[in-house]
């Protein structure tokens, strides 16, 4: 058996320079400008005059090795064997010969991968694992994304929106997908306090850690049927599931109450407005696999309200800030409820603290 010392360790990732196409090696740091030529296709022009063409295609993020080998074959056929992936899980093919672009796009379409996601479009949905692979998911991830993008695909393959629109999905509040600064965020939520498995809780969990994990101090140590365990003050629980993260005996998954919330108006770029958090638009929609029609409809409603009303370049959050939240709820038809009003830390900062209101 191998020991820890006779293997290679701590070598880190392979250096990126091994994977760069010659045109990038030659013009590294010497790019002059770029242009979007058509949906999903752009050209970068270097000071030297060299041109690099990029074709961007959608991916479901969960890809098999068979698909990856197909991508590799396409890279060999069109790009001298060079490809990359983007921060939103798209795949990009890097060409120097523009005459090959249309054939590449046709080949990508033939294996089910639409080209787009550049400029004023909806790029791929950043998302988490969901029921495919996660223990804490309150909804599926890949399935909801598939349904939403099936519906919005026209906005990926065309550039007919006022500005960029970034959608992200996280299947629980841990937010591996960090959806909290997206134009539209789809977030899985629990709505029922943990079901404490008193049997053996103190064997699998450190009770002080479970108590300390609760941000609202809803959990206290307790003896239940002669067993050391914890009790939950249910009226204080806001279903964050942090206790479950530190202790599997605090079961959160609950098919009757789990579902999806929708948030709007966040951004990370500094263009025009500073980065913003997304804000609550719809507190709860039920989990309705396999096609989640309520979620698909709500997202489309938001996209269309924005697409119709936004000024050129205006992101969702900038648009809503300009028209005001009352009008956003009126235009979307979403009900404004008690759940929309913040009651966590510093909630008062989110109250409207002026008389500047549109009265008609």
């Amino acid at each position, binding site marked *: 058996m191998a020991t820890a010392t006779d293997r290679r360790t701590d070598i880190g990732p392979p250096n990126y320079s091994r994977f760069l196409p010659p045109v990038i090696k030659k013009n590294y740091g010497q790019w002059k400008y*770029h242009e979007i030529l058509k949906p999903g296709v752009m050209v970068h022009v270097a000071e030297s005059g060299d041109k690099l063409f990029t074709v961007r295609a959608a991916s479901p993020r969960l890809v098999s090795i068979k698909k990856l080998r197909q991508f590799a074959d396409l890279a060999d056929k069109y790009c001298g064997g060079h490809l990359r992936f983007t921060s939103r899980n798209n795949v990009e093919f890097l060409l120097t010969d523009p005459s090959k672009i249309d054939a590449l796009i046709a080949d990508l379409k033939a294996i089910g991968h639409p080209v787009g996601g550049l400029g004023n479009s909806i790029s791929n949905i950043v998302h988490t694992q969901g029921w495919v692979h996660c223990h804490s998911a309150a909804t599926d991830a890949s399935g909801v994304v598939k349904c939403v993008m099936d519906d919005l695909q026209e906005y990926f393959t065309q550039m007919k929106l006022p500005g960029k629109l970034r959608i992200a999905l996280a299947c629980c509040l841990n937010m591996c997908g960090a959806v909290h600064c997206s134009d539209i965020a789809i977030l899985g939520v629990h709505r029922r306090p943990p079901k404490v498995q008193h049997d053996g809780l103190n064997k699998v969990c450190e009770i002080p850690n479970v108590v300390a994990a609760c941000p609202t101090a809803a959990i206290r140590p307790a003896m239940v049927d002669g067993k050391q365990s914890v009790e939950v003050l249910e009226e204080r629980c806001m279903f964050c599931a942090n206790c479950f993260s530190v202790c599997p005996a605090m079961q959160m998954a609950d098919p009757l109450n789990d579902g999806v919330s929708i948030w709007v108006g966040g951004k990370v770029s500094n263009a025009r407005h500073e980065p913003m958090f997304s804000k609550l638009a719809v507190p709860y929609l039920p989990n309705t*696999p396999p096609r989640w029609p309520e979620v698909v409809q709500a997202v489309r409603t938001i996209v269309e309200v924005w697409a119709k009303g936004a000024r050129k370049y205006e992101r969702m959050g900038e648009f809503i800030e300009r028209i005001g939240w009352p009008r956003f709820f009126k235009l979307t038809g979403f009900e404004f409820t008690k759940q929309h009003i913040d009651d966590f830390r510093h909630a008062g900062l989110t109250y409207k603290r002026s008389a500047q209101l549109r009265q008609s």
Partner: protein
Amino acid sequence: MADSNGKQTPLLDELEKGPWPSFVKEIKSMAKESPMCQDLLGQLEKSYGEKRGYWKHGGIVGVMGYGGGVIGRYSFLNEEFPHVAHFHTIRINQPSGWFYTSDAIRTLCDIWEKHGSGLTNMHGSTGDIVFLGTQTSELEPIFKELTEKDFDLGGSGSDLRTPSCCVGQSRCEWACYDTMQLCDHLTHHFQDELHRPAFPYKFKIKCAGCPNDCVASVARADMSIIGTWRDNIQIDQAAVKAYADGGMNIERDICGNCPTKCMQWDGKTLTIDNSNCVKCMHCINNMTKALRPGKDRGATILLGAKAPIVDGALLSSVLVPFIKLEPPYEELKDLIERIWEFWGEHGKNRERTGELIQRVGLGNFLEAIGVEPIPEMVAHPRENPFIFYEEYLEEGDEEE
């Protein structure tokens, strides 16, 4: 298509329909040769029927000498779906900028075909190549084969998570420093911190070449390194004119959207009051041929972003308004180590850097890491009068 028990998957089959690429098709494409993928389909179909997940909390599994890089995953339904009883995830540190050759992709595929489900994420949320689903016994062989091909594991648990970066100077004219080189450098320099969890909680570093922040560093990284410049935006007036002649309404769409209104267009010349430019990128984004960032380039360093758990989401906030970033990056690495030292000593279990700063106060944090407070760090000075002083004068003290 049936699972290993011969059951059909009518709910998942619905997700093979429609124009968007289907993850169900991806899983099914492997199901013929992989019982693991068959049982994954079976368990997922059950999730779709019952509206809940069936994965257990992660167990502690890994490769010898490392504490991170593998996420243990076990099924609650191990009797019904024995081939996914173990279904661990492996995180593999991606090359900077997510560039590959077809050979590198095939190398990864060959290893994964031999030892796991054949399913991947390209890529995971933090940036790693994710191998989705294998058994404990396969971990050491996979690790050996990966390292023979110059790949290594990424981070997980309470360690330095795999740093990531945007495409940077390899393909972007806006990159204000070499994001791919810095990301690669930091990743190699901090290998021990990445593989052996010794922090209070996770620490993420993301390198964005310009304020467009294509890697969402301001929302997702404990340390966000965002490229910027301090001299004048480079203007090609002839190209500006060409945009105007091409129908662009420069006054309304460019100057009108400038957050500090520092630009003027008189129909012939675009003038910019660079002393009031806040480097938002709007004008540069939309006049790519005419405007470019200045030549005196570096980065702004911000600290503390995180998702909501536990005490609410945070965006990173300014620590260093401008820093030059050239190898060997000693100033930056020294700063990172001072932050880790204070966090390691004072951070509570599962407390992110941003939460620590909230708890002890940014002023105290700065003092601890030896950074002077400056107005660039705040949106505005305090509004409340509850000011702390550590000392006070007694009767008879000499006034200084």
